């Protein structure tokens, strides 16, 4: 294994864990752990994150395989949606008789 700087390390790679709390709900990110491979990551996710029946399904993905938006660009990226209130149903005031459509 090698870290971001390309140094060889003997640390098990990092995995992100997603758990579906019960049938019908989305998988939700719940934490991370180190494991040598995917099978071990799933097994350890079960031991660590579902000791009290918190889940019915587990996903794991290598942390380095996740592409994320740039936190430094957060404002530029997400703020343009702030003034688009017409995208929400509450923007439209209808006559009382039909307001609950």
């Amino acid at each position, binding site marked *: *294994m090698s*870290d971001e700087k390309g140094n060889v*390390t*003997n*640390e*098990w790679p*990092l995995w992100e864990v997603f758990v579906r709390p019960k049938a019908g709900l989305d998988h939700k990110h*719940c*934490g*991370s*752990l*180190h494991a*040598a*491979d995917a099978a*071990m990551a799933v097994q350890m996710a079960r*031991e*660590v994150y579902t*000791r*009290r029946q918190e889940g019915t399904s587990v996903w794991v993905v290598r942390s380095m395989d996740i592409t*994320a938006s740039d*936190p*430094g660009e957060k404002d530029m990226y997400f703020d343009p949606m702030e003034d688009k209130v017409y995208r929400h149903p509450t923007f439209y005031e209808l006559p009382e008789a039909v307001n609950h459509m």
Partner: protein
Amino acid sequence: MYTQAMDTAPKEELSSQVRAMRSAEEAQLEARFEARIDDGAFIEAKDWMPEHYRKTLVRQISQHAHSEIVGMLPEGNWVTRAPTLKRKAILLAKIQDEGGHGLYLYAAAETLGVSRDQLLDALHTGKAKYSSIFNYPTLTWADIGVIGWLVDGAAIMNQVPLTRCSFAPYARAMVRICREESFHQRQGYDALLVMMKSGTEAQRAMVQDAVNRWWWPSLMMFGPPDSESTHSAQSARWGIKRISNDDLRQKFVNATVEQAKVLGVSMPDPLLKWNEQRGHYDFGPIAWDEFWRVVNGHGPCNRERLAARVKAWDDGAWVREAALVHARKHAAKEKAA
């Protein structure tokens, strides 16, 4: 479990925080960071943060993580000697929880740019601290009950405010931990209750003896008095620490004295007395020289605990290595196929 050690960092760090010739850009980033803190906003791992904030959190979260896994050792001492199968299953579940808590916390610390191996190395070489409470021995079965009641009880007092910590990965880990910690406290109290209500005279004496030995170290878990706490002011400013050491300690004493009455044990403190005027229990002076002696490596079990951790790490080296080699071999095979 919890570490009080957030306040036990080398003092020179404070002066290095003051120096720093900062560029205009950095000053602007810092102003924006401080404004977010003032707004009560959460800071995520990839957000800009002052170097001292990062360092403080790495120290505090990793010391907290170390405390969780070192805390498994005194309890592990009683797994094979638990009085019933039920108590053994409960104890195993609790110890497994502590390992899990350590993992959540190490993962939170790693988001700040340190590796797990670096963190463990700091523990194993004695550079990092862990909660000094675990440097006391578990002499009898009653100690296991008292650890749940008092030590985990103190931990809960300490940890609940941390669920609102400004650093979001730490806060999220604490939410999960607090949810599980309540079981730890209740199972301990329950075990003691059985001995006090239906035990023999000797068993009741054993409980009282355990309370006598753990009471003062439990009060020390909240850290040095506010007047001597080097990091509290900055940590409070940054939303890392929400309630002061002394306030938490008082809250713990008030809650615990009532629980002791129901249990039928007394605290080893002749000065413990309800103060109508303050609306709190008064309690006797804490032996801080003992606290510092234990923090600095001279408690009854410091050497034993660290040696057990190092041995576990060294003995497991071949397993970690073999798993990695196995994974690489199979990855290469899959690629070729």
